[in-house]
């Protein structure tokens, strides 16, 4: 099967790749662009470990085809920090030990950042339901929820 040429933007950089029409955006990010921050935990859109943004919208990259990225803007965990300055969520996750093994962390950070961009003052329940699509098996979510809530508070106070 012949491959399709895709031009897209990832974390602000213009990139190109050739992909099989059956390959997912997650496959392309990982195998063609060496952006292995997004993880495949399920391949069926249930675990959220592959979360990225597509034109600003939070998606599971395992449910998007690589060819669908044509002309779009993709955001991944690798683009969350500004140069050598961590995003407040990243720092807070370290401070709060909001990760144990860390495999779900990239997806949760991408998802939590998307939440705070549209709702800077979420309730605990809103954070829990927003992150319900991101499975974590290690933490019981307690420290994750606290880290997101506390980051939101810091970011509101910094404005």
């Amino acid at each position: 099967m012949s491959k399709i040429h895709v031009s897209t933007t990832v974390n602000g950089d213009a990139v190109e790749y050739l992909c099989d029409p059956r390959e997912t955006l997650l496959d392309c990010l990982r195998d063609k662009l060496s952006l292995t921050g997004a993880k495949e935990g399920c391949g069926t859109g249930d675990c959220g470990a592959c979360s990225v943004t597509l034109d600003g919208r939070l998606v599971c990259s395992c449910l998007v085809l690589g060819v669908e990225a044509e002309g779009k803007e993709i955001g991944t965990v690798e683009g969350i920090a500004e140069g050598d300055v961590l995003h407040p969520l990243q720092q807070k996750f370290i401070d709060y030990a909001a990760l144990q093994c860390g495999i779900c962390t990239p997806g949760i950070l991408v998802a939590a950042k998307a939440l705070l961009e549209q709702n800077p003052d979420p309730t605990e329940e809103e954070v829990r339901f927003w992150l319900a699509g991101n499975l974590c098996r290690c933490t019981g979510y307690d420290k994750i929820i606290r880290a997101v809530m506390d980051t939101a508070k810091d970011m509101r106070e910094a404005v």
Partner: protein
Amino acid sequence: MALDDLKTKDFAFVGTRPNRPDGLDKVTGRAKFGADAYAPGMLHGAILRSPHAHARILRIDTSKAEALKDVKAVVTRADFSDKVEFAPGLEGEFWNVLENVMAGDKALYDGHAVAAVAATSALAARDALKLIEVEYEILPHVTDVDKAMLADAPVIREGAADYSVPAGMHPNVVRMHESGHGDVAAGFAEADLVIEDHFTTEATHQGYIEPHACLATLGMDGKGELWCCTQGHWIVQKTCAALLGIETANLRVTASEIGGGFGGKTTVFIEPVALALSRKANKPVKLVMSRSEVFRATGPTASASMDIKIGMKKDGTLTAAEGIFRLQGGAFPGGPAEFTAMCAFAPYSLSNVRQVGYDVMTNRPKQAAYRAPGSPMAAFAVESVIDELCNQLGLDPIEVRLKNASREGTKASYGPRFQQIGLVQTLEAAKAHPHLSAPLKPGQGRGISCGFWFNHGGETSVSLALSEDGSAQVMVGTPDIGGSRASMALMAAEVLGIPYENIRVTIADTATLGYNDVSHGSRVTYASGLATIKAARHAVEKLCERAAKKWGIPVDAVKWENGCAVPSGPNAGDFDPLPLADITANMGQTGGPISGHFEATPEGAGVSFATHIVDAEVDPETGKTRVVRYTVIQDAGKAIHPTYVEGQYQGGAAQGIGWALNEEYIYGEDGRLQNSVFLDYRIPVASDLPMIDTVIVEVPNPGHPFGVRGVGETSICPPLAAIANAVSAAAGVRMRNLPMSPPRILSALKADG
């Protein structure tokens, strides 16, 4: 120098909460997990799996797959070592593993590997699988533990039972354990109330978010390199070498960052297959499981069928306890029947106790360890009966547990006498906790439970090397599965007296250290921690020797204090403290590099107890249960990094909530797994759970230099029972079967009228 004293207070570093050393890697996507490795010229592997629960493999034709241009190798069982001999029972564990990673004569469960392909792309490999023809003769199957013990059950493997199984039992019963003491019949006769009941739990999966993944290279020279996500790379090295018929030392295994394991990554599944493909193709092969493969073909925990009988006096004194535990461990020996039986009554001081465990084979995937294997099921059954006894006798559940609690000197239900243990302290902390006296709303119930786990030592080897600038690198052999690098650095900092930030902890590969047991048994902070402390003390001895030499005084006149060599007393001489970095700066000229090393199989892993308090709310219309409040109280011995200890407590509780309320392997009549994706096998999500409160009790373990007990596993022992007790109270009906899913609750409510 009194270096071997037990230190339990006045810590400078231990007990603080610094950021983990690998934090930046893990929040930026930089950390490399199993599937994140690539090699030049790498092929992609894929595995063909049996769609049948039990079938004889009559013929495998791989010719059409091999004819594809993109396919570079196809392997079947014939491509593995023929030197791995079959031996009945548990003696043949290498053979069991080989049989599990690639089926021999028979496919033993839905998902059992039968062939594998390496191709130039993952898609090409998957396409090629469709061209492999397998002719099966379908055989009768059994997936239920009780049915597998019946006389007419199909036999999974004749001759698999070991010496412990009495004559006349079904061949699927492969091991029996019996232990206890006293006279249970006499004990029951003394009781004012005896309750006997039956309980079941379903198989659940560890549910780590990272599927198994590896990158294997094995050349014609018999030398190999393997990168994989594992809880222990030495066992991977040893097992793969045996299965491939190469020498252990010729295979170097490097552990990737690991995306969760919980016991499920303590053995091999795809690694020998990837190596066999690589040897045949003479190229590196990457093999990554799909989620469905993880559910179908890697080890869930055992399901259990249990009979419990306990006698109690009106004042709450336990007079006798008896339990029969049947554990289904899939198509191989190894179900944790012994652990289940041995843990069951461990929290209680009993004059009369007897426990029997049966390890039973069925047509299901080979079970693997899951966090305190066996203990949560046993606690569910036992603590449910104790709860019911308290209810019927009108007794306080905490007071009854305190009255009967195991203490220092108690003869444990499984044999030995307990040393210093912290069960009473967890119960006292529960009694004092505001959760226990908080009012409940209508429709809510409160449950408590105790839990127990042995904890483990295991082979451990650690090296510590000092740098000229006074920083230290620590090499440990236990994969960091939840922040253990931070704990190791804290313990090394405590001994060396240098800043935490100046210590880098690395998980060494198999070529760098001697054999290290797996990151399991809650052993890492205990055993690797102990070895890190002793390796650091070894380095300190050498530092003191250099100072003694410089000062011209005997080495026993030098002691180590706050990161400096100092004279041990006024008679030793008057010298300014000599900081570590001043000694290492010119160590090349004063005797050579300074390293510390320690290796042993430490035997002093202190056992651990916990008490959990849960409030649950049951909706009688839908049968849905919500956990509204949860408190974990557990003895950590000494919490090296309290935040990560809390994390272990919270994680264990959350997994227990899933097991109690929702998770289960569901098999159809055809013996096929019905729910092999996360949508259908639903682990707790953020909106399912409340905050999980934690209380760290610290009763030092005399077997660790700083008093550490492992904490990882005990946290999953009480939740099943505590939640069942809370749900039973809320619903007004005793729940005897897990999971307490909405249909089960509705039918229990209906049966109760």
